[in-house]
């Protein structure tokens, strides 16, 4: 097994980034216009990177699949963004944010990266305020903070329940300014179809114009992927419909390593599945668990309405199993227990895949007005989607996939093992280890885009120089040929099952075996089932054409090919990691309280997988993780 070098700079933790910035080469402002950079994705990471690099003078080409860069899925983030400002004077610091993030990630992230993230978190807030992001404020006019996701300090900045939207619109404004200046060429409604690599260096991409179906070659001196996460492998997730793995998956097939693919976060308070036609799950703030009590009927298959089930026929399973934390156990524990109840036939609602979250007691105790003030908007949202009044009958909730900690492997410079290929935001594996803390995803996306890549890209280009491989070269022609033949192949199958139908089937396998709780037998079953589904796809899928006009179904078919491959790799990775950590729970390594038991002796490392060909098993590379500043400890929620 080969080991990977994260290229972590030397010196004390707190000085690494500053020293590294001094050691890296710079590109003279007048010379930056000689260099071109491709950025794929316009969420927080991609928009921030595009704007910042263009401001510095690089020629940037930016791509997004949506009709506008403002629509990337970062926009849906609700809660907030962390920073170590210590404005609340409650003992926060860069060091504390660093320690919390390393521990929260259950010791599966790189210390040096996480420390840098905490360092630049403060610059992010300053930048966003200067851009006109309307953060919540106190009466005196200073920025407001709240405690979020169980943090013991108030370090979360927020703009109502729309923090992601406001941060993204800030970055989008900066990007728009550079588009107007001609420093960014924007390609909306374009999907990356392939990464072009030659001589072990990323040379550009093949993009498909989704409106007319044309394949375009784009060369550059460096390629930055900021294409988000892959929760949609589960079919039903809280991700937007267009979220997909295809950009990073094509990079993986061109030799980039995929790190910790099995690390996914499943959020307990999503709205449940209510219709057989459901395409999407909606998240509700987990603050609801502060006052709601989770229960299911004691008897399986009890289909009576909630209010007809008496107190002694109800099972408040979290309160019973975890007397001290009760309904406030961490996300992964709450999610797992809900699924276990549903698997035992005690699930409620039309599909039997939901548990109750009951506010009756809280309303009796505090009055309806108090509960409405705290959760009114969430109750309204619930009423609109579920058509039920949570003041009168208990809410129904169910866990949903919403963030993936895994992604392409990158070194300290956010460069993958392919030189010139950088990966930012949720698309890389980086800073969250095996579990992401609330309000940390926005922080990471913007840190990577505004404050890391401007330095490390210059460091790379200063050494590597220009690419000098034009769009007329064989490497680009081969890639266009590959993308073209894939589309033709899809349209030629003309079988009997729709893309959605097959994706739903994959999602069910992922949810059952590669979701909240995993075991050896289940993972082996999943691998076999996915292979069968893949075979079925290539024989029996029916894809709508023609390819020369906007056709979402054709786009989704291409993305499903990659989800099928990814699903198998996630199962392989989960099978290989014979420990539990963070959101990855192997039932073979679970304490009696349902807690993850890590195996630091054998698995204190990043698992990175290298593609070996269509039929071959992927090769495993590891990057050992050293914890020199935070002591390895086991979580407990007794």
């Amino acid at each position, binding site marked *: 097994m080969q080991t990977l070098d994260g290229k972590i700079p030397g010196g004390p933790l707190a000085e690494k980034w500053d020293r590294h910035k001094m050691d890296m080469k710079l590109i003279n402002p007048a010379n930056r216009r000689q260099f071109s950079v491709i950025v794929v994705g316009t969420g927080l990471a991609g928009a921030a990177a595009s704007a910042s690099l263009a401001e510095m003078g690089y020629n940037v080409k930016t791509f997004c699949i949506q*009709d506008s860069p403002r629509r990337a899925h970062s926009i849906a983030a609700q809660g907030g963004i962390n920073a170590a400002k210590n404005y609340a004077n409650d003992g926060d610091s860069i060091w504390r944010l660093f320690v919390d993030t390393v521990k929260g990630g259950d010791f599966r992230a790189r210390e040096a990266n996480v420390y840098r993230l905490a360092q630049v978190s403060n610059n992010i807030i300053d930048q966003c305020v200067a851009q006109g992001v309307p953060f919540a404020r106190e009466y005196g006019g200073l920025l407001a903070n709240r405690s979020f996701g169980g943090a013991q300090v108030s370090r979360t900045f927020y703009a109502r329940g729309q923090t992601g939207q406001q941060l993204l619109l800030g970055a989008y404004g900066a990007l728009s300014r550079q588009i107007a200046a001609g420093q960014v060429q924007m390609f909306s409604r374009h999907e990356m179809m392939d990464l072009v690599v030659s001589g072990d260096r990323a040379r550009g991409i093949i993009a498909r114009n989704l409106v007319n179906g044309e394949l375009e070659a784009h060369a550059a001196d460096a390629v930055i992927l900021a294409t988000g996460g892959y929760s949609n492998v589960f079919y039903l997730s809280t991700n937007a419909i267009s979220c997909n793995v295809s950009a990073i998956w094509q990079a993986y097939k061109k030799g980039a390593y995929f790190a910790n693919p099995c690390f996914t976060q499943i959020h307990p308070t999503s709205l449940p599945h209510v219709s057989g036609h459901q395409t999407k799950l909606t998240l509700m703030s987990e603050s609801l668990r502060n006052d709601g009590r989770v229960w299911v009927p004691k008897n399986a298959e009890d289909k009576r309405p909630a209010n007809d089930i008496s107190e002694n026929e109800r099972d408040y399973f979290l309160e019973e199993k975890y007397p001290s934390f009760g309904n406030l156990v961490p996300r992964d524990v709450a999610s797992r227990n809900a699924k276990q109840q549903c698997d035992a036939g005690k699930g409620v609602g039309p599909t039997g895949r939901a548990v109750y979250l009951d506010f009756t007691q809280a309303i009796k105790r505090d009055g309806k007005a108090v509960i409405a003030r705290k959760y009114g908007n969430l109750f309204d949202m619930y009423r609109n989607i579920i058509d039920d009044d949570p003041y009168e009958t208990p809410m129904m909730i169910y866990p949903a996939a919403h963030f993936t900690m895994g992604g392409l492997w990158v070194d300290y410079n956010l460069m993958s093992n392919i030189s010139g290929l950088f990966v930012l935001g949720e698309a890389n594996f980086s800073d969250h280890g095996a579990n992401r803390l609330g309000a940390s995803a926005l922080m990471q996306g913007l840190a990577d885009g505004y404050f890391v890549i401007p330095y490390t890209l210059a460091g790379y280009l200063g050494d590597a120089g220009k690419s000098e491989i034009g769009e007329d070269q064989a490497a680009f022609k081969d890639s266009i040929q590959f993308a073209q033949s894939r589309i033709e192949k899809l349209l030629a199958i003309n079988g009997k099952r729709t893309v959605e139908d097959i994706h739903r089937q994959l999602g069910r396998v992922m949810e059952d075996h590669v979701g909240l709780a995993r075991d050896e037998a289940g993972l082996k079953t999943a691998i076999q089932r996915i292979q069968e589904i893949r075979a079925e796809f290539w024989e029996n899928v029916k894809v709508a054409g023609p390819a020369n006009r906007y056709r979402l179904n054709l786009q989704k078919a291409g993305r499903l090919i990659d989800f099928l491959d990814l699903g198998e790799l996630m199962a392989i990775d989960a099978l290989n990691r014979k420990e539990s950590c963070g959101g990855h729970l192997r039932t073979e390594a679970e304490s009696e309280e349902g807690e993850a038991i890590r195996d630091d002796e054998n698995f204190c490392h990043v698992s990175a997988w290298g593609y070996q060909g269509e039929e071959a098993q992927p090769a495993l590379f590891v990057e050992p993780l050293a914890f020199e500043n935070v002591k390895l400890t086991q979580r407990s929620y007794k």
Partner: protein
Amino acid sequence: MSEHETINITLKVWRQNGPEDSGRFETIPVADVDTHSSFLEMLDFLNEKLILEDKEPIEFDNDCREGICGTCGIMVNGIPHGHGKGMTVCQLHMREFDDGDTIVVEPFRARAYKVIQDLMVDRSPLEKIIQAGGYISVNTGGAPDGNAVPVAQEKSEEAMDAAACIGCGACVASCPNASAMLFVSAKVSQFALLPQGRAEANTRVLSMLQEMDACGFGNCTNHRVCEAACPKEVSITHIARFNREFLKASLFGRMPMGE
């Protein structure tokens, strides 16, 4: 929640193959629609059937399906995003309709929006308006501490009301003049309210208005339907603030570059 039901409906849906095609309504019966599905899920369900019948699926823009990304937007029975108050069409549910209903589904219509395919339109003119000045010109790095400039809470809250705009373009589709005034004023107002945005306030309002005109949007004659159509309930008081900003800029400001 109410009982699981299915209804049968008839869609009169706009079909158009690209901007050059003249387009036409097609009548399609849809049976067994789950009332708990959303309007877009009903279209997905129909599209799956169409595909299996070797017919072309209906194209429509959509993405987050929770009312925040601003991608979706179609006319349902003549109303942008349908008749639900304060919601996008992705948040509209089929339980709002009755068995036997005929539902008319069309793209957003405005001179500035070209139809791409069926119910999808090209809203890139809205992008151009933002590019003309819908930002505060600060480069990355060098920003002062976030608390260096206090902002009155009520101003900040009002700026947030304006910033809630999702850029879906329903205001344009609802307006008899196909004006983008609510969209433009929301951005102008957000930055006019914040001290950070004052430095460029004059050029911003003049540039954005000039671009709105150049893109072929009409002007505002106070019909106020935009406010009713807005899924985020952005208020027309922002248009009033826009007008004040415009007046100030016209008297004291510089014209945009190139004038």
